[in-house]
């Protein structure tokens, strides 16, 4: 989620209470002699930063915070035994591994250090990087507590966004468009399947009875607030990603006023070859990566300049001083495309 979230309501982790509770319980169990390492897994802009900030706020003096900013080499891995704090919080652990021959050595060394240490490691991971490492290296075996931040449903998202403003500050402009189909909304249910260790999120259709009732004869009609329609649209475009939803909200908000027409969706037509899909998967998994790291992953066979040019030209990737990342509004379409073409497993 956006780093600068300022919650007026006083609850900085709206929608993530359950996850925070699980982390607090795992920290509480630490010290019993059984390893309690924690992995926090979320999609880009999925709410990881919010959780990390709250952990640091609550356990400040006990936590050594170590954010990774770029791909590191084995020699740059710190000596964890020399850190005085009991809890080591390592942010952006995706930078511990790169998808190339020899690219797992740092991660191997880190995991070895982690299981040899008596400290508690709290690590944060990009969901797609985690999925890859989980399939390839069975990394989930190293973490007894895995917190997966799922997609957010509209009522929670509404709370998150409105908590950033004073009550009554926002004016919702009704242009008569609220009549449109709101019979159902897409939510993401957390399901625990038998024979599967982790919970999974499945898209679920929730029928909107209040809107259905609105179609009844005039006397029986129930008013649907324009707020709900607006937040439903924002969440549909953001595909349940709170960070993307907040950015969409901010870009649609004009002088504390928002209307349905102001919320626009950027259309993407994605057509990529194998090399382009592969590099896009790497950029998505790493959130942001420098061109020289991408060139090392691509190898000599691939013309990385051409691939990056094609991705930037289609608006799927942006170049910020040599660092490439997927723009927030392209995240949803890119993830859907890469899942469809089996780049994300």
């Amino acid at each position, binding site marked *: 989620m956006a780093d600068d979230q300022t919650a007026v309501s006083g609850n900085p982790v709206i929608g993530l209470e359950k996850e925070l509770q699980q982390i607090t319980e795992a920290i509480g169990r630490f010290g019993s002699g059984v390893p309690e390492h924690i992995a926090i897994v979320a999609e880009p802009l999925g709410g990881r930063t919010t959780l990390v900030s709250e952990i640091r706020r609550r356990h400040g003096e006990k936590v050594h915070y170590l954010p990774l900013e770029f791909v590191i080499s084995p020699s740059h891995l710190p000596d964890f035994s020399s850190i005085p704090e009991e809890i080591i919080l390592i942010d952006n652990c995706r930078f511990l591994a790169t998808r190339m*021959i020899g690219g797992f050595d740092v991660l191997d060394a880190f995991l070895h250090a982690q299981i040899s240490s008596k400290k508690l490691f709290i690590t944060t991971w990009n969901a797609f990087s985690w999925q890859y490492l989980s*399939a390839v290296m069975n990394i989930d075996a190293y973490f007894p507590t895995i917190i997966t931040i799922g997609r957010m449903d509209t009522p929670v998202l509404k709370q998150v966004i409105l908590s950033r403003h004073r009550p009554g500050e926002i004016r919702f402009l009704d242009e008569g468009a609220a009549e449109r189909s709101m019979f159902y909304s897409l939510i993401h249910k957390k399901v625990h399947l038998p024979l599967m260790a982790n919970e999974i999120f499945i898209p679920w259709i929730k029928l909107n009875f209040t809107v259905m009732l609105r179609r009844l004869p005039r006397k029986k009609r129930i008013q649907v607030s324009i707020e709900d329609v607006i937040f439903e649209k924002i969440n549909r475009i953001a595909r349940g990603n709170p960070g993307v939803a907040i950015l969409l909200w901010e870009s649609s908000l004009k002088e504390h006023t928002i209307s349905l027409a102001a919320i626009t969706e950027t259309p993407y037509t994605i057509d990529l070859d194998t090399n382009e899909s592969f590099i896009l998967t790497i950029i998505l998994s790493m959130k942001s990566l420098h061109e020289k790291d991408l060139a090392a992953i691509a190898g000599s066979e691939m013309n990385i300049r051409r691939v990056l040019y094609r991705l930037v030209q289609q608006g799927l990737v942006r170049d910020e001083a040599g660092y490439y990342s997927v723009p927030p509004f392209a995240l949803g379409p890119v993830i859907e495309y890469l899942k469809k073409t089996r780049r994300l497993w």
Partner: protein
Amino acid sequence: MADALLSNVTAELPIRTIDANLILYIIFIIVVAYVLTWLLSFILVHVSERIGWYRTSVTMIIPLLKLLVYLVALYYIIIAVIEPSLTQMIAFSGLFGAAIGFGLKDLFADIVGGIVIIFEKPYQIGDKVTIGDRYGEVKDIGIRATRIQTPADETVSVPNFTIFAQPVTSGNTGDLAMMIVIDLYIHPDSDAEKAMKILKEALVTSKYVIISKRYPYTVLLEDFPFYQRVRAKGYVNDLRLEFEFKSEVTRRAWAEFRKAGIRPPSFVPPAGQISGASEDPDAELL
């Protein structure tokens, strides 16, 4: 007596007068059936190419739809020519059977083979198969023959009857992913452990690979008299890219092997000169 029965049956068979209109009608039905099957194939193949993960699930219904269209067309042709009763149908089937026995045996064996393929599914459209000594991707399952596109881009028509006579191997059985075996041969003095690590990493970092619990991978080492074989088994995410996958992993692994001082085997005597080696089919590959 049989003659009398047959004459009774044929005498009552209300065969319509064969005129230009009837012939045109039959031709029209055949053309419509052909166009319809072509159109269905075209649309479904087009849809399957866009659908990604479930490509083969869509293409598998094409042969069934084709069979359905041809059966309906046959029904319309029969009722256009005659209006048969049950007795007449039995007599007609007898004559039909005799015709098959004499001249159209192979054709009907192929059609029956086609029906068996549709229902038993030894392979589906989109699969990579070996039928007899032919290997390639199944592009179409017709009523008479199956068309296979070989790696050299040749289209081979294999009569459907072949499935009764020869074994059929499907590399993926309806799935889009397919297991690929990649063998690299190294000098016996080379560091085999390092070679296994490099090949494993070349496999898992490939842009063509898919790995999950359903699609696992493994790297194996086997010792031979004059070389060691490092074998990687993994799934390519789209079977159309099997050769690219194999080539990419091999190329990248060998580039790293050289950097790590891992050498290829220097000399292998002809298979016949090594006792015991002649039983090993892999020795002939070198």
